């Protein structure tokens, strides 16, 4: 059984086809002027169509299904007042609201790096407002038992992926290695280039590493039966809903991440529960799985995963700290950026791809054996996760570049002001390996933090 996560409401769609211009995989089909359909075999659930669709349901139109019926069908809370549009993703707020009211469940939540630079926009604050403190406070008001952070899991991902890259480079493993944290990219690779899946890092995404840790280590330290844990993640991404449902994501013995809510859905839930977000005092994330470094938080922007990996990889290889922690030459906008990084005797050739279409020429090169990069970061969304399909939807197209720029700047600013900026220096990461995981790429890591991919080619 599969319900499509991204859909186009045929009653509303006018066939303007603005969505087709942003779809990276040509999954939207239909004639001009007629309702469009999404080919779910091609769709990578990135949600860019949801972000751009401007055809809304008018409250004053009486020849369509009533709006509150539509909202219910889409899984939206009754309390939601915002307008709905033709292209949409199904929601899970009702599920989470019910779980939060269930005293028999132990509710844990993790939040992605890109959420904290955009969530406040839904409450009228300026584009790109950085509010991790208010976000944590709101989640506690919602009665989550533990407020953890995907940024911690991102630090964990760097430990595993950095070690994996070094191993492949020094032991003649499959190169180039591609990042695997973007689930839409992974789905695309499985659909179109299954023969190259061995190039993907075997690391799970931070969300899934976080989920596996929450139901094992998280259960252990709080002395809770993992069967009672309800694990939620807040993501800027619609495809993360697909990722958490992947059948193999159960290495904890349970479904590692039970439900994913987008940034927009979290805002709807906060409003629905009457929480005054704007006036919340700042709170911290819970320790153990909530403390993060700047390297973890920059995962939300294109180039962030690469920069975080280099900050740690440099030190793992040379045993010396990286001379300059801000790798400006790695940062940038949509497209393909390349660099050569000198790490001791190694000249590491890296590439950063954002905008899924842009990865195709690289993949074709890999097929022909012509690609000499060592490590390639791939993000489906134009500027990385800050521009994700689940982020606050802009009313005016002219605000889009302003919003993306502001969210990116806030992310790098947050990183620059944090005390710890390298994943391997996170004391809770060190503690996690000491107490529970052993060492990167070790037996426990392999079981809980690494995964396999599946060909979806038809």
């Amino acid at each position, binding site marked *: 059984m599969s319900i499509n996560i991204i859909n186009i409401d045929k009653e509303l769609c006018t066939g303007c086809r603005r969505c087709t211009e942003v779809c990276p995989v040509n999954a939207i089909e239909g004639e001009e002027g007629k309702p469009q359909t999404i080919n779910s075999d091609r769709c990578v659930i990135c949600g860019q169509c949801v972000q751009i669709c401007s055809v809304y349901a008018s409250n004053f139109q009486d020849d369509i299904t009533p709006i509150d019926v539509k909202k219910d069908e889409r899984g939206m809370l009754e309390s939601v007042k915002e307008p709905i549009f033709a292209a949409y993703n199904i929601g899970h707020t009702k599920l989470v609201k019910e779980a939060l009211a269930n005293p028999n469940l132990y509710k844990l939540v993790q939040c992605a790096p890109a959420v904290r630079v955009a969530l406040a926009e839904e409450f009228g604050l300026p584009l790109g407002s950085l509010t991790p403190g208010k976000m944590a406070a709101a989640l506690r008001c919602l009665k989550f038992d533990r407020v953890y952070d995907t940024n911690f899991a991102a630090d964990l991902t760097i430990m595993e992926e950095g070690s994996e890259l070094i191993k492949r480079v020094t032991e003649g493993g499959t190169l180039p290695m591609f990042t695997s944290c973007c689930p839409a990219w992974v789905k695309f690779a499985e659909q179109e280039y299954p023969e190259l899946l061995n190039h993907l890092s075997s690391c799970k995404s931070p969300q899934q590493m976080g989920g596996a840790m929450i139901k094992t280590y998280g259960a252990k330290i709080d002395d809770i039966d993992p069967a009672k844990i309800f694990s939620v993640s807040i993501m800027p991404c619609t495809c993360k809903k697909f990722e958490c449902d992947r059948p193999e994501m159960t290495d904890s013995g349970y479904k590692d991440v039970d439900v994913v809510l987008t940034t*927009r859905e979290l805002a709807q839930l906060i409003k629905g529960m009457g929480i005054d977000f704007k006036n919340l005092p700042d709170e911290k994330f819970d320790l153990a799985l909530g403390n993060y470094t700047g390297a973890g938080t920059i995962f939300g922007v294109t180039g962030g995963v690469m920069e975080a990996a280099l900050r740690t990889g440099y030190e793992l290889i040379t045993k010396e700290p990286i001379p300059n922690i801000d790798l400006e030459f790695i940062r940038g906008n949509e497209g393909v950026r390349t660099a050569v990084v000198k790490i001791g005797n190694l000249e590491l050739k890296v590439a950063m791809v954002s905008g899924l279409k842009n990865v195709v020429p690289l993949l074709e090169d890999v097929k022909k054996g012509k690609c000499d990069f060592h490590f390639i970061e791939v993000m489906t969304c134009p500027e990385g996760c800050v521009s994700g399909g689940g982020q606050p939807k802009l009313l005016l197209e002219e605000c889009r570049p302003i919003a993306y720029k502001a969210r990116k700047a806030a992310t790098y600013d947050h990183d620059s002001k944090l005390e710890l900026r390298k994943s391997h220096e996170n004391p809770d990461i060190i503690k996690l390996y000491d107490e529970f995981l052993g060492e990167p790429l070790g037996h426990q890591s392999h079981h809980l933090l690494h995964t396999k991919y599946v060909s979806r080619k038809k």
Partner: protein
Amino acid sequence: MKTIPNTFVIVNSNKCIGCKACEVACFTVHNENNNVVATVGTVTTPIIPRLNVIKGENFVVPIQCRHCDDAPCANVCPVRAIKQENNTIVINEKDCIGCKTCLIACPIGAIDLLPQYDNGEQVIQLNLKQEGENGLEEKAKSIAYKCDLCKESGKPACVNACPQKALTLVNVSTEKKSRNKAAALSLLQTSKSYR
């Protein structure tokens, strides 16, 4: 006594794709008083645009006020709520009583009568109530809505928002002069070939 004709926004029907970005933009810039900021999540009232995208079998275009120089709406309003300000025909929403005379007078249907909102809520009438399922209930104040050429900012939001650049703000005298010039040049070319 020179009168400059009123400006207005018109669509190029060949370019419109029916995406309604114009309607969304129109609503957005007119609803700061309803706490609408940059994102969909800040909207708590129904979207009420002042131009309407009309879709038929073989066409789709937005229709909006022409800011008629002999505005029938202004001439029939019994409470004088509709006036010319600069080169724009503007409805004073505070004075409007919702009589709908302007709505019937407008030959292109540019005016709509819909509830008034402030601070995210319907504005409720002082005394007039309506029959509901459970007896008498509050009635919202309804007002006439139409394009005001974004008089607050002076830049029509719909023109900016259109992804196909299908909407333009027409300055009648500039438009006339450029067409006259093009016609004159064309005549010059034709005259040359008659030698």
